[in-house]
Each structure stands twice: as structure tokens, then as C-alpha cells.
């Protein structure tokens, strides 16, 4: 059965001030109603200030990342009228498209525009917090060209990556809102609102497909309607049918002249545009000949990808890629941080891998130093020196440590000799601990084996 899905994605644009006033855009970390003024609370007589150009430029940049054509005629900002407690003026200001006809992963992007976020209404207390009111949003509307919840999820993940690449949306995340429309072959189009995450979109679509298929198998028709996603239960619930569709009575906002986007501006932004993640991924595979899986992970964050390219100038590319994919990612995930905020500099990675490759430190030491980087934030060379972690290359010293370890663990030696080969690994561990990890474990194993088997003879 053919499934058709389209998405409307709203994401907050990261600016210091709101779209139509000079209030700060921070609304999470401050007391309710502290970053407000007469404009963003829609007091009688308040007029919007000229729109925040940084927000508009950000929307243009985002549109260009999706290969959109930027609209050359002046763009009107409209009033979309509806009544809700979080909307202080009884209308939301939303621009006409600033860009059209883009694409991402082969899916068409119909249009991109900007608008203002409403405040936050708490139905339990009946209070409204206007700190968020007037924060700029970008809305991206796709063509109905997705065909499964998995495909939609994949698309949204990629889109999130692209937005993060631009650095123009809020870094802390969790601000994405998605509306989706879905129709099954032979059924009407259903819109789902109130989705707040990629996972939510996936779950809502899964539920909706099951619901619609059930209706059809029981010979009932799927109504054209708008439904709300209830995240706590992972279900959708009817909001209104088509006949009750709201008329927003759009008019161009008389307080705002249309926004002109100049050719110079478009060219300027094109020049500073980062390469899109999926393109970067492809380039890495071709240019550096690294594994496709590694390229995908490295390209997931712009700063990480940039670091890789810097490291790969000095270190063999596949080694750099594997190290970043395995070690760096592991540490980022363990600490729950992005590479950008990790304190790990590309130069540190180069230094570390050079020390490791030249045999100055062991692989084990290298991994340990790597783990310490987000906390210590200093050069690996200095960390190694301060802790005296330079690899011991004095054979006599290592041999003596092996000798001691064998004497201290006769049981393990006996086990090994009786066929339990893994018992020797235990003794390797003892030697490593005696040398505080500075011995080369491969060499230790070699020495131990020679010694134990020598005893046997």
C-alpha cells in the first residue's frame, strides 16, 4: 500500500534578540516573564520594530543549504489570526516564503519562511510565560515525497544535522516542532500536529498508519482531518475535521514593510555556506578513501568533520578516521557533549597519535590520555610527561617486572601450563599494573610466554 508523507519542520533560530523587539531570546534559564516588553506581549498600541536581520539572514542560509531558490521580490510578513492564550495579539506574524524549490536527500523542499514563536501557555495553572513570545523560527516545508516512517525519521535526522552545520539554530536542541501529513492509498490526507522530536514524528506516523489501515480493513473511510500527537501515550487524537478548518484571515501586516533580499546578500551568504553533511560524507569517502561508516559518523558534526580533515593532513587518513570514530566518539557519548564543547583540539589528536605511532606511549596510554582531555583540556604531551607515562623501553626493567609477576602468581602459571591459555593474560595485566601501563603489552606477552615455556623445557 502506497504511503505518502510530507513534513513541516519548525526550528528556533539562534539570535540574541527576538524577531520584532530587543528582548533577549533566553527563555529557559530565566524566570517566567522576565525577558518581555510591550512589543512581544502585544500591549495595546505596541508596534513591531524592524525585523531582526540576523534572523532573516539565518533563514536564507538554511534555505541555501537545501539548494533553494531565494525569492527576489520583496517578501511580505503576514498576520495569521487565531485565538489562543499564548498569542498576545490574536495573530502570529509569519512571512511569505523567502525561498522555494530546494531538496535534501532527493526529497523536495517546497518552501522556507520565518515567523515568530508564541508564548508558552500552561493549561494547568492558566498562566502564560511570554519569554518565548517573539523568538524567531524558521519553517521548512517538504514535498509529500516520503513513503515510510523510517524514511521520515532518516530525513529528519539528516535535516537536524544540516541545521546544526549552519550553527544558526539553537545549540541546546529540543526545540524542533514538526507537523506532518500522511495519506494511505485510497484514503484522505490527515495532518498531525504537536510533534516535538524526530522520535515523536516516527512514532506518530507508525501509529497513524496502523490506525488508518485498521479503518480501511473494516471498510471504513479515513476522514480528512487534523489530529494531535499525544506524546505520553504515543497516539494521535482527533482535533478537527476539514469542515471546521480555521480561516486565518491572512493579511499583510500593515506595520511592516516587505523585506527585500538583495543579490549581494545572497551571494555573500553563498560564499560562507558550509558544505552539507551528506556531501561532505561522500567527499570523505572519495578523497580520503575512508570507510563509508566512518565517514558518516565523522560528518555528523561540522566541528568533528573539520577536525578530521586537519588530523588527516598529518596522520594516515584511515587511522585518523578509525580513531575519531571509535575513541573520540566514545568519549563524547560517555560525557554527553558535542565535539565543539569537548575541549579536544585537532592538534591534540595529532600529538597523541604521533606519540603512539612513534612508540613513545602505548595504545593503552593513548586511550587513557584521550579520556582525560575533556577534563584536563591541555596538551597530551604535557599530560604524558606530568604522569610519567612514557613507554618503558628498558628491556631489563620489563623483564624484571615479568619475573616478579610470575613468582607472585604461581597458580596462574600452573593454570596456563595445564592448558588455560587465558591465564597468561591475567599475568600480563599484573605486569602492566606494576609498570603503570607504560610497558608494551605485546612485548610483555612475548617475554612471559618465553619465560613460562622455558620453565617447561
Amino acid at each position, binding site marked *: 500500500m502506497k504511503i505518502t508523507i510530507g513534513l513541516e519542520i519548525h526550528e528556533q533560530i539562534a539570535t540574541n534578540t527576538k524577531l520584532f523587539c530587543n528582548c533577549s531570546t533566553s527563555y529557559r534559564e530565566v524566570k517566567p516573564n522576565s525577558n518581555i516588553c510591550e512589543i512581544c506581549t502585544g*500591549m*495595546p498600541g505596541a*508596534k*513591531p520594530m524592524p*525585523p531582526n536581520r540576523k534572523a532573516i539572514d539565518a533563514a536564507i542560509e538554511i534555505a541555501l543549504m537545501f539548494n533553494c531558490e531565494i525569492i527576489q521580490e520583496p517578501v511580505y510578513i503576514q498576520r495569521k489570526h487565531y485565538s489562543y492564550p499564548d498569542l498576545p495579539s*490574536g495573530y502570529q506574524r509569519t512571512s511569505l516564503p523567502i525561498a522555494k524549490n530546494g531538496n535534501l536527500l532527493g526529497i523536495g523542499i517546497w518552501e522556507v519562511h520565518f515567523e515568530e514563536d508564541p508564548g508558552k501557555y500552561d493549561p494547568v495553572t492558566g498562566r502564560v510565560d511570554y519569554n518565548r513570545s517573539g523568538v524567531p523560527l524558521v519553517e521548512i516545508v517538504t514535498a509529500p515525497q516520503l513513503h515510510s516512517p523510517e524514511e521520515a525519521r532518516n530525513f529528519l535526522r539528516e535535516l537536524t544535522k544540516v541545521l546544526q552545520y549552519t550553527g544558526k539554530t539553537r545549540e541546546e536542541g529540543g526545540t524542533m516542532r514538526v507537523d506532518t501529513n500522511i495519506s494511505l492509498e485510497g484514503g484522505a490526507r490527515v495532518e498531525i500536529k504537536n510533534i516535538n522530536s524526530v522520535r515523536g514524528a516516527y512514532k506518530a506516523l507508525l501509529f497513524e498508519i496502523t490506525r488508518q489501515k485498521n479503518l480501511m480493513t473494516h471498510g471504513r473511510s479515513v476522514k480528512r482531518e487534523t489530529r494531535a500527537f499525544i506524546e505520553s501515550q504515543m497516539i494521535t487524537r482527533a482535533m478537527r475535521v476539514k469542515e471546521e478548518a480555521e480561516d486565518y*484571515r*491572512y493579511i499583510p501586516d*500593515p*506595520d511592516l514593510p516587505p523585506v527585500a533580499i538583495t543579490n549581494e546578500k545572497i551571494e555573500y551568504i553563498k560564499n560562507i555556506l558550509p558544505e552539507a553533511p551528506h556531501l561532505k560524507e561522500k567527499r570523505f569517502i572519495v578523497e580520503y578513501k575512508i570507510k563509508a561508516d566512518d565517514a558518516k559518523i565523522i560528518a555528523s558534526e561540522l566541528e568533528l568533520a573539520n577536525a578530521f580533515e586537519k588530523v588527516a593532513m598529518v596522520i594516515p587518513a584511515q587511522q585518523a578516521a578509525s580513531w575519531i570514530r571509535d575513541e573520540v566518539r566514545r568519549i563524547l557519548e560517555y560525557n554527553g557533549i558535542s565535539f565543539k564543547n569537548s575541549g579536544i583540539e585537532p592538534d591534540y589528536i595529532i600529538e597523541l597519535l604521533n606519540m603512539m605511532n612513534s612508540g613513545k606511549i602505548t595504545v593503552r596510554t593513548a586511550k587513557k590520555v584521550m579520556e582525560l582531555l575533556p577534563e584536563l583540556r591541555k596538551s597530551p604531551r604535557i599530560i604524558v610527561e606530568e604522569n610519567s607515562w612514557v613507554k618503558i623501553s628498558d628491556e631489563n626493567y620489563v623483564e624484571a617486572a615479568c619475573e616478579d609477576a610470575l613468582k607472585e602468581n604461581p597458580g596462574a602459571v600452573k593454570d596456563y601450563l595445564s592448558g588455560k591459555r587465558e591465564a597468561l593474560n591475567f599475568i600480563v595485566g599484573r605486569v602492566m599494573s606494576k609498570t603503570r601501563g607504560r610497558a608494551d603489552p605485546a612485548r610483555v606477552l612475548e617475554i612471559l610466554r618465553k619465560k613460562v615455556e622455558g620453565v617447561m623445557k
Partner: protein
Amino acid sequence: MGTLDEKLHSLRAGEISAEQNIQNFLDKIENEKYNAILYVNSEALEEARNVDRKIKQGRAGKLSGLAIAVKSNINVKGLKTSCASKTLENYSATYDATVIERIRREDGIVIGMANMDEFACGSSGETSYFGPILNPAARGRIPGGSSSGSAASIAGGLSDLAIGSDTGGSIRNPASHCGIIGIKPTYGLVPRQGLIDLAMSFDQIGTLGRDVYSTALLLEVIAGYSKREAVSRKVENLDYTSKLTPDLEGYKIGYVTEFEELTDRRINSEIKKSLEKLEMQGAELVEVNLPNLNKALPTYYLTTFVEFFSATRKYDGRRYGYKIEDVCGEEILRRIHIGSYISQKEYSGKYYRKALQFRSLITRELLEALRDIDLIAGPTTPKLPHRLGEKISPLDMYSYDVLTVQAKQVKSEISLLEYSFRQNLLKNRRFSM
């Protein structure tokens, strides 16, 4: 009573104090019978004493303690900015409109909030929730509207100056009916930040006074670019008072034949006399045709109804106590319903957008007419004020605006304003701009 120019001299010379000036008006307001002032600024005397100190130190601003009445749709922090409606009867402004900041900066003193037609929707001064305003210049007649209280406070001697707002004639019309001077400046010249909306693309704050000089002086104070709003004109050299000269040599003044056809013959004969005076002062009179004049009024009302509908959505009962539709007068309700009706999706092309197209047409026509002349002179209203309380149909009421909506369609003709001061020097009281 001397001119305001002379009063300013006396204030600066210390012959009268700002405190005396304000006290004098407060006494008059207490006993006023025009219902012109709804709410008095209880801090006016304190503010006046501060201005007196500044006068002594020789650093008082241009308005040096003059009393200004403010129309009740312009936000003055802490004062009731009710729009003369029950809808906002409990709303105390939380901020100063930009024009109020500018008046304070020049040491003008807000004496009180003036009565008006409810939400500025009216041309007669009869629709205020707080009762009609009386015309101090013509007993028993309407004062005109909607800045009725502002005009009556000047005509009735309750303030030195007043500010009002004009959308389709709301300053010029009551100024004309009350026999004073009133000006609607070019759209975008005076900041609207803090002016409660009637129709955003027409609304403009302007000044009212007893003579041209004081009206020009106050305009000089409140006009000029503001970066706090998106529609603001970047105009330099805002000096109107020094340009007031009776010499009209070399000026071309247009008179519109279509105006004459629409206007009462008693008014026409006054206009004729005034035009002759202008000619005597050296101006050349030129006949001007505005064939699309008949489209101006419907265009204006279609546009304003839709914008008014949009502007009043915030009065939904959640924040200001009452839902506007539940407590407003019939004229307000009529406008909201028509505005809501014609802004529906299915009609947007037919009405609002068509009105915007006609507006461009009328703008072009007027700009074309103004290309070869310096200004257009004409009557403010087509008929004399009716008796207070007399029942007239909404269409007759709207027709008061037929001559004033025209200029409003034009968003961008600064010269219209600048030169129109000159003719007013002739002390012709029938003129309002």
C-alpha cells in the same frame, strides 16, 4: 488671550510659572462642561515644579511647561488609556508612547487624557462609552471626531495644546468643527509606537492648537525618525516654526473641482474667500482634477475595517477584562463584523486586496496632481456639523470623511505638509490640514 508664542516667553522669563499654568488648567478641567477630559494626570503639578526648576537653571526644553491634552488612544504610562471604550476601561498604560517621551524631553506636561469616539471609530464625538463631547465653539452641535476631546480642550481653553490621531480625518474634522488648527502629518513622519490601532496603514498622530505656530511647534517636537518601528520616515531638518511666513510668492496652490461638487455651498463660499486671500498673498491658483475621488471613500473603509478587525483581536477578554464584541458600541461591532466578513479567505481577493490596488491607483493620481503644484487647498468636511444627538445613517456619517480620506491614501508626500503651514499664517480658521 495672547498667543502661545507669547505665553512661552512669559514662562521662560518667569513671569508665570509652569505650576501656575498647570494649576490654572486643572481648575478649568474640574469645572468643564464639554466632557473633553476623561482622566487627569495627578502628577502634572509635580512635573510642573520640576520644569520650573529647569527654567530657573535655563535648561528647559521647547515646551517649557505647556499643558498638553492627550487623546485616550495614546499610551501615557500610568494613565488610563481607555480608547473611550468599556473594553479598556481598566487599562492603565504600562509604557509611554514615543511621542509622549518626546514631549516630556522638551518639558511639555501631559495634563490629562482626552475623550474621543470609541476606538477612534466615528466622525461626530458621540460614540464614547463615557458620553458625548460638546462643541465649545458651536453650542448644540457635534464637535466632530474622533479626536473630539483633543479639539474641544483647545477650543474650550482646557489645555495649551493637544495631540490626537487621524486615520480618515479624525484630527482635521474636529479641528474644523471646533474652529481650531489641526494637522494630520504625512504617514510615517510621527512615530506611532504607543498609538492604539484603528487602521495601521492610515493611523497617524498629529497636533491640535489654537494657532499655526503652536501646532507647528508641537509637531516639531514629536516628528522624526524612530528606529523603534518599521514604518518610519527618515526626514531631516524638522524645523517648521522658522518656515512660517505669509509670503506665498511663487507658490502654486491647487483646488480640486470634484471637492466643490461634493460640498455644501455655504462651505464652498468660505473656501472661495480663503482661496482669494491666498491669491492676494502671491500664490498662483491652479485647477486640479481627481477623477478617482469617488473611489477613495469605499477603498478607505474596506481597508480600515479589515485592519481594525485584525487590531482588535487582542481584546479577547483574556487580558483586559472584557471581550470587545461583548461591550463595545454598535459602530465598533459593525466594523469588526464587516472586517471579519471581508477578510475571509474566499473574499480576500475581492475586497481587501482589491482595495489595496485602488489605493495604489489613488496614490498615483494624487502624486501626479501634486507634481506641478506645491499643495492642494480645500474644505475639510463636505457639510456643516449636525446637531448633537441627531440620528444620521452610518453612510452619512462616513461621508464626513470623503474629503479627508484622500490624502491618507498617500503615504509619502512630505511637501504637502511642509508648505501647508504657510497658508495657515493667514489666520484662516476654516483650514485644517
